[in-house]
């Protein structure tokens, strides 16, 4: 998985200066939480269902070998070929091999985070294949040569005007104007319809693999994934090993959480379950179907303290509720996974050395954990990654010494109270009538950008003791 997360701070600074994109980030941060809240308020049992699905997910992960084998057995019986890929490179090789065996020229793709993770598009292009993303958002960023900025809405950072310019440049359809968003969607519909009809191989992702019957669930609103799954002669479903669930009803229980959290709907326009190649009674559909199941370190994550991250259902709610994501946008993360879920997952799928800035891109406000339909304690996982960063000495020695000092002090409460009893009132006095400090030793990272609010005149413990004394006297 290719990342550029080491430049997070520079990317973030650049993003903060881009006021045009900030408007669209504001939309994500303001509108999507409201849409989600309305949907969840209407469904009173959301929290109880969240707990139920979590139990099922944990049960599936506890017995992953069993359920994967069961799924494989059923899928093979349904007429599929099932491949396992250790890492991204192996997945790419397997898919290219399938395409070449069929002499494919054009590959049409539905939205798939797994193939974003493995960089499949570039790999197939190097193998002389014409690869067309068909999800509208993915298609737009493919034309722009960009990475997705959001796991659900990959092109939400782009304005309609920018998209219009892209279409004018890339679609040779003569002079025209795009008055409305509908005109843009219409043009993409027409252009992509041609690609759909000419695709030799379709590649899609999967929201869940169902062990009991070997079906794969696909959740979309556009229907592009379904066209990719149904029109070409060959279908390849690329997903990861952690997507397997015991039963069909488990998949749709999860669907209730996923769709409400992502788009606020009770169910997307298309929820499709695919079992394999065309049957004797079918008059359309692919004649050959493959599953490629990716590990890429997930089996390591399973045995680590970060195991709960495998329960993520990719709804995007944690991005939509994250103040950091809202401020700097998805590209700053330098990864196909952004926001809180990306800040946990990226270091686990790559290395903390390459992406240590990400776990620090968090204010620990806790909103992500509150809204996560998979009930993943994201701030805890981010904090653990920071701890690891510290233990591995990836932070500066000055930072580590400061933390060590703080931790030592915190373990000596009397001394801690004595020191803060001097420092806090002193800061209060220096803050003066403005109540703010414009400079602080060892905290220039903060004060170079903004003032530090001066604390109250006394510490909490000083005030608490004074109150106890007063109560005692009365």
């Amino acid at each position, binding site marked *: 998985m290719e990342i550029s997360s080491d430049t997070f701070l520079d990317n973030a600074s650049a993003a903060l200066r881009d006021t045009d994109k900030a408007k669209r980030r504001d939309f994500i941060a303001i509108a999507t939480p409201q849409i989600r809240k309305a949907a969840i308020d209407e469904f009173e049992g959301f929290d109880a269902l969240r707990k139920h699905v979590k139990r099922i997910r944990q049960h599936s992960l506890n017995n992953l070998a069993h359920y994967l084998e069961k799924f494989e057995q059923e899928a093979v019986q349904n007429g599929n070929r099932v491949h396992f890929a250790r890492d991204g490179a192996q997945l790419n090789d397997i898919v290219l091999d399938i395409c070449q065996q069929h002499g494919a020229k054009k590959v049409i793709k539905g939205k798939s985070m797994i193939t974003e993770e493995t960089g499949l598009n570039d790999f197939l292009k190097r193998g002389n294949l014409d690869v067309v993303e068909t*999800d509208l958002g993915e298609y737009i960023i493919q034309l722009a040569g960009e990475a997705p900025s959001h796991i659900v809405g990959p092109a939400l950072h782009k304005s309609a005007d920018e998209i219009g310019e892209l279409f004018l440049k890339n679609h040779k359809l003569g002079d025209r104007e795009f008055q409305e968003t509908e005109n843009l969607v219409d043009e993409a519909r027409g252009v992509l319809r041609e690609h759909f009809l000419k695709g030799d191989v379709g590649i899609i992702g999967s929201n869940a693999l169902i062990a009991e019957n070997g079906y794969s669930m696909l959740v979309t609103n556009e229907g592009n994934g379904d066209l990719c799954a149904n029109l070409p002669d060959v279908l390849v479903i690329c997903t990861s090993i952690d997507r397997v669930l015991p039963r069909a009803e488990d998949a749709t229980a999860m669907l209730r959480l996923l769709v409400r959290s992502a788009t606020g709907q009770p169910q997307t326009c298309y929820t*499709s379950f695919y079992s394999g190649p065309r049957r004797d009674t079918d008059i359309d559909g692919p004649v050959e179907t493959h599953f490629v199941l990716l590990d890429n370190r997930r089996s390591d994550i399973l045995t680590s303290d970060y195991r709960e991250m495998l329960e993520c259902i990719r709804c995007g709610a944690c991005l939509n509720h994250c103040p950091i994501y809202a401020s700097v946008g998805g590209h700053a993360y330098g990864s196909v996974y952004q926001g809180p879920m990306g800040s946990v997952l990226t270091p686990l799928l790559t290395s903390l050395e390459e992406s240590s800035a990400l776990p620090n891109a968090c204010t620990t406000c806790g909103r992500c954990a509150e809204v996560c339909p998979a009930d993943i304690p994201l701030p805890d996982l981010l904090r653990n990654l920071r701890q690891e960063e510290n233990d591995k000495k990836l932070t500066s020695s000055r930072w580590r010494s400061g933390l060590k000092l703080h931790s030592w002090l915190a373990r000596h409460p009397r001394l801690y109270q004595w020191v803060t009893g001097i420092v806090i009132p002193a800061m209060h006095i220096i803050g003066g009538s403005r109540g703010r400090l414009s400079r602080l030793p060892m905290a220039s990272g903060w004060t170079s950008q903004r003032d530090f609010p001066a604390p109250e005149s006394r510490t909490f413990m000083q005030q608490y003791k004074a109150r106890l004394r007063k109560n005692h006297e009365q």
Partner: protein
Amino acid sequence: MSNSSRAELLDKLRDTASGQSAGRIELERNAMGSGNAPFVSANNLSLTYLQNVLANRGSITCVANRNEAVQAVGNYLYGHFRSHRLVAGNDPRLAAMPWRDAGVLPRFGSLEEGEPAALSYAKLGIVETGAVVTYTGKGNPCANHLLPEHHLVLVDVNDLVLNLEQAWEKINGDLGKDGRPRGINMIAGPSSTADIEGQVVYGAHGPRRWHVILLGEVPEETRELAKNNAPTD
């Protein structure tokens, strides 16, 4: 290449797994039961169902019998296309409809370029989400629900189920009886996208309009709802 990865991976996973037998794993899953579904009043299922279809931006018609059904299809087609061109899957229930009475002569098969509308007969309607369920096959080629401009679906009022769990009960019954269809499709609205500035636009890649015709005896209230929300051209 993927064979060695398979063995390697499954061995690794087995080492870390709970080590329980398949039977115990099954028992453990059974003990977890089903998740809770949103409350749906069983009072007037047809009314709630059509309300949810409308919320999904579908349009609705209510008909009491097959004669009314073909008339409704004919009226819809004429209203939108000034023609009666229609494609329908080779579903015996559709073939047995009195099409001539409405002047509609469907072509039975898979949608071809230039054909604007297709009709499916749903296996089920899911009240909880306002969705229809179809199985791909001769009776419902996938082109018919993915490629037309308008997708019309007949839903028998006796095929309404309360929620997704009940839908699976029925679907699993069919799978046990008739084998597994290649695709099980739950459809809940016309194709849509919000990928440009978050603005919802209908008709992304699939049908721009989705029309549900509910067939059977329903309470007056349901008929009223359908009458007040008659599809516009």
